[in-house]
């Protein structure tokens, strides 16, 4: 395996990744070997030592480029959740976003460019709790909540190609 350091410029931020790092990021998003020494297997495929693979993965994690090596869960197989949206007056957006963030049940909260400009996911152990959170947000903000629960997921999740 080529070990030369390659400069990859992403937007204005230069990000320096070695060939091994790029391979780990791109080619190992799925099918982690379910054997006692999965990183051994990866190391053999990459032609490097197991310790080198582990050290690179730790480094990628420390640099915030990967969140983990592990499972990606399917949505809504347990508990209850919904995608919700609010149309918030622009000058109230920070305050409302902060209020919504205050719920432990809210795990994503994004501003988007649209009449409905605040989008968040509410997930809880059961539907009653999801409804209670939405009701509270509606009451406290005075804004109607758009409640868009998942009806069906279409996916073939093979990971995300970073370099083709």
């Amino acid at each position: 395996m080529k070990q030369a350091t390659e400069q990859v410029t992403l937007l204005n931020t230069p990000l320096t990744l070695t060939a091994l790092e790029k391979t780990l990021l791109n080619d190992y998003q799925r099918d982690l070997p379910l054997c006692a020494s999965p990183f051994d297997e990866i190391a053999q495929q990459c032609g490097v030592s197991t310790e080198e693979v582990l050290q690179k993965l730790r480094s990628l994690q420390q640099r915030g480029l990967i969140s983990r090596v592990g499972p990606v869960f399917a949505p809504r197989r347990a508990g209850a959740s919904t995608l919700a949206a609010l149309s918030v007056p622009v000058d109230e957006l920070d305050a409302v976003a902060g209020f919504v963030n205050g719920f432990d049940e809210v795990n994503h909260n994004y501003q988007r460019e649209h009449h409905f400009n605040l989008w968040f996911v509410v997930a809880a152990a059961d539907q009653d709790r999801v409804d209670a959170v939405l009701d509270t947000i509606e009451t406290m903000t005075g804004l109607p909540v758009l409640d868009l629960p998942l009806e069906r997921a279409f996916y073939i999740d093979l990971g995300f190609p970073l370099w083709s």
Partner: protein
Amino acid sequence: MELSDTDRALIAAVQDGLPLVAHPYAEVARQLGTSEADVMAGIASLLERGLIKRMGVVVRHRALGYRANAMVVWNVPDENIEQIGRLLSGETYVTLCYQRPRRLPHWPYNLFCMIHGRSRASVRRCLETMIEAHGLHGIEHEVLFSTRAFKQCGARYGKFAMPQEPAGSAHG
């Protein structure tokens, strides 16, 4: 789908990732007081039942320069939603593709997909290519780019993790 206590304990133990050591499943087994073989079998079972979609490196798209993130929403005739949902979900840069209810009159869209790219221009090009390739010109849609992430984390319920519904960003 019902989760057993064993499933829940295993999910809680691996949700933040495997320990980056030579024998990660043995390490998880030590934490749970079970055997390495049981941990591997448990993960295989979660994969088989579709609770885990994939096991591997979970990248942070934004940190890697994929900063443009668009939620594209479509008003698809009900009779075509399965066909179009399958087409879109098979597209390389579509990370999520979900059917959700319309809320008329405010919200006419019933199919949601997420497209990630290095720039808004590349996301728009990708969308145009998809529309062209699948003949989706006649289908009403809107593109909602994200401008700020106020919160981005996995869902947790006390002691046990629940698989979350990823809405805003990609995985992880």
